[in-house]
């Protein structure tokens, strides 16, 4: 009767410990996400990277800005790979888009001043084409940034595995047979 009661108590205690530890792990996981998960908002061709729903602005990337997304998401390997795709496409989009916009504006200005030459339509059409090409690369860049932050946030949830402790040599206990052998010697 007594042993049955003790068994029931042990089972109850283990049940409580398991449930409490699972809940605690979930809470830690959720807190980590709340405090560290990133998102971005596009802002006139740039990407503002924000931590949390209404959290602080971590940095603004794009349009000749030097903010290093790769460094920000360095803790996750897939996120880092996508950040590299973002960086290369964003740079191309910035350069070509700016050249295109400048050409188009010059073309429009020449056209508005009634100083039409043969180069005016070339400037406008070429400029718009370059802007479209730049916009296409900007879309590719933003998609890569979105994937990068998705992977980064995903890997926040993974438990951080602590390194295994180094094994400590434990002296073997001398057996009775060993003692007898030593005495015989």
């Amino acid at each position: 009767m007594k042993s049955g009661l003790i068994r029931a108590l042990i089972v109850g205690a283990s049940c409580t410990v398991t449930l409490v530890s699972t809940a605690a792990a979930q809470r830690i996981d959720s807190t980590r996400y709340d405090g560290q998960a990133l998102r971005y908002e596009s802002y006139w061709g740039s990407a503002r990277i924000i931590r949390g729903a209404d959290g602080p602005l971590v940095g603004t990337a794009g349009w000749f800005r030097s903010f290093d997304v790769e460094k920000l998401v360095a803790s996750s390997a897939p996120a880092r790979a996508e950040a590299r795709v973002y960086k290369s496409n964003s740079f191309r989009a910035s350069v070509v888009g700016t050249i295109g916009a400048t050409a188009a504006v010059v073309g429009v200005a020449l056209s508005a001043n009634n100083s039409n030459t043969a180069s005016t339509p070339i400037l406008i059409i070429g400029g718009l084409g370059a802007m479209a090409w730049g916009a296409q690369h900007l879309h590719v860049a933003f998609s890569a940034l979105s994937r990068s932050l998705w992977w980064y946030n995903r890997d926040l949830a993974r438990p951080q595995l602590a390194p295994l402790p180094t094994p400590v040599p434990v002296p073997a206990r001398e057996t009775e047979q060993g003692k007898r052998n030593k005495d015989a010697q």
Partner: protein
Amino acid sequence: MSRLTPVLFGAQLLIMGATVMAAQESGYDENALRVESRQGNLQILRGIEGTVVARAGIFHPPRLANLVTQSDSALAEAKIFERYYQPGQWIAALGIATLGATIGASRITDINPVIQVSLYATSFAALGYGGNRLHSAYGALSKAIWWYNRDLKR
């Protein structure tokens, strides 16, 4: 048999704990959303596989609210997104069309300069206002997806 009972019970608890943890992780891998833009079209994708679950059409937003109903905060932001996206697109498109018309009109030699300036002012105002609406919409979209993915982990 009576000795086996606590052992079996303990094993069951361990399995239960492991299942909860695994479900939490696979929940994100399979269900977490993200936004991508393909050929200039806004798309919402789900999970590692990147299944397209919603896409924006011409002048209509992706049906975001239907996707994020599980999370109240995400739903609130999704409604803001759907409210701002469409007017933003329409007004920005109107601004671009007006700008095109203004540039075309500027080639007419005897156009009244007041009309020309008014057309430029209207087109830039429409572009600015539409762009601002779209910016608010994209901000809400980003928050909605953030909240939804966050609540997947709870």
